[in-house]
């Protein structure tokens, strides 16, 4: 008799080890393919897997095989018009006659294509990147705690008494303990009522019954209204409170000189930063601050697509950021990151103000500040002032970008492993 076994619940990832081995072995090629893929697709859908292909010859497993040439006879099916002795020209590009011998095993294909999962894709993308100055995350190992309610307990300090729960318990206890007395009282009363119907009944008996009833009632009355046993206390336990929340400030110049192309580059940069942070933090707030001569907090939509004319005052955005930080994101609770994109234009007089704002009010409270300048022109005074900031703060980085293609290397440069 055959055995029928349901194996569906067995682990389905028997090949996971082999898959990982493969990815590890060819990580060089795959990383390159991933790089190409990122260049090729819009970064707004970064959160997907990707079909990558690597050259099949790199991963082939060689065996002894016959090569082309020599003499061979091959049998085919479905003859229609051939007679023995017919000559047919040799088909070009194929050895050994016709038919698709070359591609049936997949070995003959030039590219080996396969699907990377989203996680694997990002893993490759972010490989050897590291969150800079993960001071807070390191501190998170000496975690802050917060107390949270966790049900009730039967002892505790008086301030924590849960009144409703305690009273409920007391009521239940009273009902439970009185039950037998009430039963007896009801019985005796029935007896008494029965005696009352009989005229010749002995008054003494009645009296006795009344006595008993009274006694029982007194007993029932003596059951305490509340007992230490009834008390319930709020139970509070301590839970570690990881600071896994981050806020990311996106600052961008939207003055006339920033055209859509530049904004596009900036956008990708912001998205990359966002994705990167998302891997480390559970919750990320994003604040978009756009500025020309004045700054305002805007929605994502406005941020990337609105356009203003006029000049540029960068410090306005920095001031606004400072205000928002103080108001909503105390640095004790939040890991703060900032990314600023600009084409480098600024009122000359404003740049030193920016420098001071950054050094005194902003950068000390930040995990990281990344500034990218999207321009092909020579650095202007903003860049020069920022260079001074960079000199004084290790968590400040700045880069110049010319085309979309520069983003990835710049991104890596900004966040490359910091040797301690």
């Amino acid at each position, binding site marked *: 008799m*055959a*055995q*029928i*076994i*349901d*194996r*569906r619940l*067995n682990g*389905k*990832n*028997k*090949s996971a*080890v*082999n*898959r990982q*081995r*493969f*990815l590890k*072995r060819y990580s060089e090629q795959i990383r390159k393919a991933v790089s190409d893929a990122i260049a090729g697709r819009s970064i707004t859908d970064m959160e997907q897997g990707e*079909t990558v292909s690597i050259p099949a010859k790199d991963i082939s*497993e*060689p*065996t*002894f*095989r*016959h*090569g*082309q*040439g*020599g*003499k*061979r*006879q*091959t*049998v*085919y*099916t*479905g*003859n*229609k018009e*051939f007679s*023995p*002795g*017919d*000559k*047919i*020209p*040799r088909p070009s590009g194929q*050895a*050994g*006659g*016709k*038919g*698709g*011998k070359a591609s*049936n095993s*997949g070995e003959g294909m030039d590219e*080996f294509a*396969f*699907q990377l999962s989203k996680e694997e894709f990002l893993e490759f993308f972010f490989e050897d990147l590291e969150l800079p100055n993960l001071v807070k995350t390191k501190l998170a190992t000496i975690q802050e705690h917060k107390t949270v309610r966790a049900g009730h307990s039967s002892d505790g300090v008086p301030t924590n008494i849960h009144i409703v729960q305690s009273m409920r318990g007391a009521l239940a206890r009273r009902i439970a303990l009185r039950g037998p007395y009430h039963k007896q009282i009801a019985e005796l009363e029935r007896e008494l009522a029965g005696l009352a119907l009989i005229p010749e009944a002995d008054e003494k008996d009645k009296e006795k019954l009344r006595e008993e009833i009274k006694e029982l009632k007194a007993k029932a009355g003596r059951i305490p209204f509340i007992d230490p046993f009834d008390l319930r206390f709020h139970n509070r336990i301590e839970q570690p409170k990881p600071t896994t929340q981050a806020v990311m400030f996106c600052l961008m110049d939207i003055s006339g000189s920033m055209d859509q192309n530049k904004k596009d580059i900036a956008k990708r940069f912001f998205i990359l930063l966002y994705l990167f942070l998302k891997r480390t933090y559970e919750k990320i707030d994003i604040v978009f601050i756009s500025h020309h001569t004045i700054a305002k907090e805007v929605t994502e939509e406005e941020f990337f697509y609105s356009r203003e004319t006029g000049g540029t005052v960068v410090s306005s955005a920095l001031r606004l950021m400072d205000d928002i930080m103080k108001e909503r994101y105390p640095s004790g609770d939040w890991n703060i990151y900032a990314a600023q994109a600009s084409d480098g234009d600024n009122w000359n007089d404003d740049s030193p103000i920016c420098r001071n704002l950054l050094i005194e009010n902003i950068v000390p409270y930040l995990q990281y500040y990344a500034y990218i300048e999207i321009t092909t022109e020579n650095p202007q005074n903003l860049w020069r002032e920022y260079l001074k900031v960079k000199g004084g703060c290790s968590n400040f980085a700045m880069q110049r970008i010319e085309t979309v293609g520069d983003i990835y290397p710049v991104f890596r440069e900004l966040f490359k492993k910091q040797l301690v």
Partner: protein
Amino acid sequence: MNNKILSESSEWTFELIERYNQEIARVAANFKLDTYPLQVEIITSEQMMDAYSSVGMPLGYSHWSFGKQFLATEQRYRRGFMGLAYEIVINSDPCIAYLMEENTMMMQALVIAHAGYGHNSFFKNNYLFTTWTSADAIIDYLLFAKNYIADCEERYGVEAVEATLDSCHAIMNYGVDRYKRPPKLSISKEIARQKEREAYMQSQLNELWRTIPQKEEDVANDSAQTYPSEPQENLLYFIEKNAPLLEPWQREIVRIVRKVAQYFYPQRQTQVMNEGWATFWHYTILNQMYDEGLLSDGFMIEFLQSHTNVVAQASFDSKFYNGINPYALGFAMMSDIKRICQEPTEEDRQWFPEFAGSDWLETLDFAMRNFKDESFIAQYLSPKLIRDFKLFTVLDDDRQNELEISVIHNEEGYQRVRQNLSDQYNLGNNEPNIQVYNIDRRGDRSLTLRHVQYNRRPLADTMTEVLKHVARLWGFKVRLETLKEDGSVELTQQVEPDNQV
């Protein structure tokens, strides 16, 4: 409405599978199919891909190439290029057949009949399988291999083990004894023997390491002779026993790969027969059940559609042509043998006097037991089938400018086209004939392989890579000579050992 019908719906349940299996088993037994006990396992499509990528080994050791296989399978499956194979069956005792949960009841029944009784009986009775594989020991052995290799990875590092496996895989096809019968082994014996081997292995290698001075005439005699005295076809075996620099654990890995190659060797030699046999029986068994009123018309139509797809054979000029479909050829030949037994024509009597008109069950049983693809075709391919398939041979000679149609399906051609087709299934012709020819014991300890050319066919460029793998295992220089058809020998390639392959 017939009450005997087993099911109407296409949904399967465990009870239904059980009932179908009972009926199929009963019908199979009536047809005298001799099988191992059957173990049916229900798995998901993902598990099927797992099974698929470990080339049908229920317990594979870990290696990146299986991961590659898995990714390729997954990719094709996702894109819909390929339906998953609807059956995988393991040559073991009990015989394990996998059913995919996504399949309909009809498919489950088809797979049970095809794999669980068709392949199963073939595994149990074909001479190649009974000679070369030990169905009762294979699961234990694979488990041993998996654990041993995992152990090695822990002790010597994943990379070292992987490198050794890579090299072994490269010459896996040359890890087969074609003529010697391997002894049956049990798991406990295997472990005991492995310990023993490890302890004594190094001392057995003194042929190469011998440093005691020899008398002069001995040296003269010695250098005149080649070692091994006769060429060795089993490269992996030769390396396992003679490679001077391998660590004991590496020898064991060579041995494991060799054993796995040996286990799969019969399957590679009996593709047409094995698939033909299984297809013939699922067709016969399910038709029998239909005749008995156990199957509904709907079931039968669904079944015939899927059966027809399996045995479809495209013409050479079709864009679907992908060589000769072993299912189609095998099924046609099995059915044809039955036909020749039951309704022989004059031609059949002339071609197959020994069995035309005989009992078809016995004749088929005999054919299944005693042949492999090559001999099966040479023996049983009938002129009628050659005509049905319109078989013809193309001669491709690189000394001619044009291809020549050498034989077609006519009176003069039957014998030769049959011979050509049979040769096409001869692994000895398809794989280059490469053997260990000599090792230079007195000099640089180099290993010489000799390729005996067949029809002037050269080796593909991959040989350099393969030789590097051989050199890694051997530890010294490896030479490859080619023996041409005119008797001349030339040095084709030589490779110095280099740990980077």
